[in-house]
């Protein structure tokens, strides 16, 4: 389904409830009423083009957002990506950690597999945090200064030499896959996690929640990377061309 501005947002959520955390990032919460996407965005001063391209990228793997690229400022994208990051690191990861620690408590300290999986996830979290940190401290600030410099260059024609040293293609080239390990963790749980616990029913219940969280996070992260690769990178490439060529 291609999501367009005259659709009712409620219908869209009925069709794909995975979009709920996405609309939350635009400060739209459930209970948003009966409006169309256009109306709801106008009420809240959300850029409709941008909102639609994010929704569609999340909703449909085949969707390629090129038509919308030119129409919104890059700071919107950065703002969105930052919000997504804090959702992952402040909410999703702690939730998963909590579930793992519940499982460990239920099974006693001696469940070797569980301990290994738990260490595996902790290592993953460190890598993931490093990935986010690099984006937030190097890539996003670069993009924002480029946006600012571009506006100033139009005024005075001067070029900031610092900006010439970096290019978004560097980021594109080594933007690593952050979901792969989550896939492995699912495999390990599905195939090899032994039921060793004083309360098997509870253990099964929590394992199921944990697995569900991993599926959700894995999907979220792969859409997130697509937004970085398909919306952010081409947008910045265009800006760089503009900035670096015309001197």
């Amino acid at each position, binding site marked *: 389904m291609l999501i367009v501005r005259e659709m009712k947002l409620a219908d869209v959520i009925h069709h794909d409830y995975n979009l709920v955390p996405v609309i939350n990032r635009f400060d739209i919460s459930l209970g948003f009423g009966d409006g169309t996407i256009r109306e709801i965005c106008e009420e809240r001063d959300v850029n409709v083009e941008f909102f639609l391209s994010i929704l569609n990228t999340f909703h449909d793997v085949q969707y390629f957002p090129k038509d919308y690229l030119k129409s919104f400022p890059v700071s919107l994208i950065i703002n969105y990506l930052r919000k997504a990051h804090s959702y992952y690191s402040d909410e999703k990861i702690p939730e998963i950690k909590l579930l793992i620690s519940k499982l460990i408590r239920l099974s006693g300290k001696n469940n070797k*597999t569980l301990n290994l999986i738990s260490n595996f996830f902790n290592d993953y979290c460190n890598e993931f945090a490093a990935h986010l940190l690099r984006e937030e401290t190097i890539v996003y600030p670069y993009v924002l200064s480029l946006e600012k410099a571009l506006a100033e260059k139009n005024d005075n024609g001067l070029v900031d030499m610092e900006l010439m040293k970096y290019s978004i293609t560097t980021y594109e080239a080594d933007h690593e896959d952050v979901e792969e390990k989550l896939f492995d*963790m699912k*495999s390990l749980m599905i195939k090899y996690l032994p039921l060793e616990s004083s309360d098997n029913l509870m253990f099964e219940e929590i394992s199921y929640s944990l697995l569900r969280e991993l599926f959700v996070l894995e999907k979220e992260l792969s859409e997130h990377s697509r937004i970085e690769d398909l919306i952010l990178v081409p947008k910045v490439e265009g800006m760089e061309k503009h900035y670096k060529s015309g001197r």
Partner: protein
Amino acid sequence: MGALKNIILVENNFLLRSGIEGLILELPGLLLKEVFDGKEKNLYRKLINKKPDVIIIDPNALGHNFISIISKLQEEAGIMLIGLLGSDCPENISSRFKNHLPLEGNKHLLLQKLREACGKDAVYPTNKKTQADSRLLSAREIDILREVVKGLTNQDIADNLFLSIHTVMTHRKNISRKLSIKTVSGLMVYALMNNIVDINEMG
């Protein structure tokens, strides 16, 4: 063997394409790797580069290139060709395919044909022996796994075990496929869990 089979589809008709995709999704063990519409430049090369186990072809999608492409594909060992054919398909075309998916078939028939064509065992392992073979790592694969989790490169592993680098890579692919584990640290957990390596061996 019961490992994942990679399928490539050559189809230019959107509705048929979606239909075939739907069928493949219903069969665990089959993976649709890529769809071509048949008009790509150097299509033969592109098909071969994907290293497919199965190629499903609609002759109409290839148009007048059909004979030249299919002749080359027929010579490739290890690739199963399936024709997507209507009942009015002429004999000189249908005879090029070992397996047929009849356009007029109902869902049940199509799933059955697809399963047969891909090798029954690919989808639902039928006898106990093949099932175990496809699940468990061979002794050789365990040797390789042991080296992989030490953090060695393919070249190091090849040198240590007197294998070609190509063989090492093939083994690694099979290991990941059998275990559904893609990363080295995931393999490490598996190896520790199954006492294939000792935690003290790890640096």
